[in-house]
């Protein structure tokens, strides 16, 4: 049962353009969402998060949007840079209790390639 899904295995974008990575979830107990970036041979690195009480959170070039009714979130990177090329994982957690409390459930990842 895949509770967090990233349906695009890969995304290719030109430098300077916008990258949009998508993520869907099914568990309505999830109320905290995170994006991680992973380079080869390294562990995932925390990028940005959003609580379910918000619909948008920005940090520099990175913005995460949350649509609770659609159980969908997206990560926008503007402008994209070659150094952004990595695998991006969406993750979800429950902060208010239940079996998802504090436990990160990850999607399968999307490989982003930014071409110069």
């Amino acid at each position: 049962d895949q509770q967090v899904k990233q349906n695009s295995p890969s995304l290719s974008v030109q430098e300077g353009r916008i990258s949009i990575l998508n993520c869907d979830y099914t568990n309505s107990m999830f109320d905290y969402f995170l994006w991680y970036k992973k380079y080869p041979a390294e562990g995932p690195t925390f990028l940005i998060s959003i609580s379910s009480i918000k619909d948008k959170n920005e940090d520099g070039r990175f913005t995460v949007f949350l649509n609770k009714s659609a159980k969908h979130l997206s990560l926008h990177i503007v402008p994209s840079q070659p150094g952004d090329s990595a695998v991006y994982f969406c993750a979800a957690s429950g902060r208010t209790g239940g079996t998802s409390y504090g436990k990160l459930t990850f999607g399968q990842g999307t490989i982003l390639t930014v071409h110069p």
Partner: protein
Amino acid sequence: EAGVAQSPRYKIIEKRQSVAFWCNPISGHATLYWYQQILGQGPKLLIQFQNNGVVDDSQLPKDRFSAERLKGVDSTLKIQPAKLEDSAVYLCASSLVSYTEAFFGQGTRLTVV
């Protein structure tokens, strides 16, 4: 601030052998996680500790996997006996409390032949 330390980085063993991984979390982080990441998939939680108590081990194959976190700091994950399907990267992570962002170590790549 030092990050999450893991060792070894790489390990190759034969099936039915045993192996152990070590993790030292970020100082002061109460929550420690072990994740398994199979090639092409996202990390999957094996076990979560809060201090030295187990919070969640529902996805840990307890017939062959074991983990402990003595004194609420360092942790070890053991596999005995290993199977071919255990080939994966084993990631340790820690967080200040259980619902904040987790910080990951570099992982241990295990190959079972």
